[in-house]
């Protein structure tokens, strides 16, 4: 009974202070979401690293496949016109 393994893996996200996004910090095991929050507090915020915690079951996350990186991400590489530096504006115009 005690070894029954229903302690699933949770991914932990912490907001370090208001104004910043939650950021992935790691994972842990817990039987349910409440315990996952409590464990996350002990494991990931021992030194005031956070003011808000999100926990998400690991198996609920869908990740992109690194083998598909080429079709997914390279099309953006040759679109320099999406960046402000692509456009020539004279210095006397000032910051734009």
């Amino acid at each position, binding site marked *: *009974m005690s070894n029954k393994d229903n302690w699933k893996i949770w991914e932990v996200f912490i907001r370090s202070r208001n104004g910043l996004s939650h950021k992935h910090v790691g994972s842990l095991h817990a039987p349910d979401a*409440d315990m996952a929050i409590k464990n996350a507090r002990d*494991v990931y915020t021992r030194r005031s690293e956070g003011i808000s915690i999100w926990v998400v079951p690991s198996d609920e996350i869908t990740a992109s496949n690194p083998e598909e990186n080429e079709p997914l991400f390279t099309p953006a590489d040759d679109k320099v016109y999406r960046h402000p530096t692509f456009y020539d504006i004279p210095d006397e115009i000032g910051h734009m």
Partner: protein
Amino acid sequence: MTKEMDMMEQFQQYVDGENKVEPKHWMPEAYRKTLIRQISQHAHSEVVGMLPEANWITRAPSLRRKVALLAKVQDEAGHGLYLYSAAETLAADRKDMIDDLLSGKAKYSSIFNYPTPTWADIGAIGWLVDGAAIANQVMLCRTSYGPYARAMVKICKEESFHQRQGYEIMMTLAKGSPEQKKMAQDALNRWWWPSLMMFGPTDEHSPNSAQSMKWKIKRKSNDELREEFIDKTVPQAEYLNLTIPDKDLKWNEDRQSYDHGEIDWDEFYNVIKGRGKCNKQRMAARNKAHEEGAWVREAANAYAEKQEARKQKQKGAA
């Protein structure tokens, strides 16, 4: 060239380019296995490492020392968890890893099989054992496997307090009464050599090192790390006015590094094989703690199941 060899070649180039390997990337099976072994042993060491120190929590000489030691031991538990999590990203199962530790199949750092008979040992462990661990872990912050490197960055930040609290204990004792100074010297005598052994066998007797260096899992050799540690630690011992128990320890002007005496590798292999002073005690304590915690795990399971059932029932009613 076969496809497998092609992939291996690409992987090597990728690693040579100082790129980090992430969980979903293709990696050679041996790379994955080496990492699982190394990371889980590292995790076990953090967990077993709590035992020699926990021995002194109730007998710490002041409240200040007690809260620091409690926080340090709690950190070690956290470090174990960061590392188990990193190993899990390689598809290792947490339960298997823990079972292997409890059954004695898995290894952990031999340093924790030495006893802590006096309070000065807590100082020496923080100063020397954590110092040696930090040298190794700072290197591992640049290891090629992303999740391991990230765990190390977090651990290194926290370890620095561990070493400082240990050195502060040593300073207090070394400046104290003659008895206290003797305690400090005695602890240094007992922990010096085992701390040097923490870096592992000499480079010529460390057959797996070359491959680990090639894959950039390790970034420095055992001997390199050991010498760095000695060079850093000797002045710290001098400041304490304590004597490092090595009559061959001598500054080498040419190498700009200390030469040191022969390490007793028989002792090292003996402790690894289970014949250290505390191997049995540590495993017994770890197993006892695991068994005594069984009801907590059971209760948490039962509560989670009950909550889930209640939720389902409410859904059904709605």
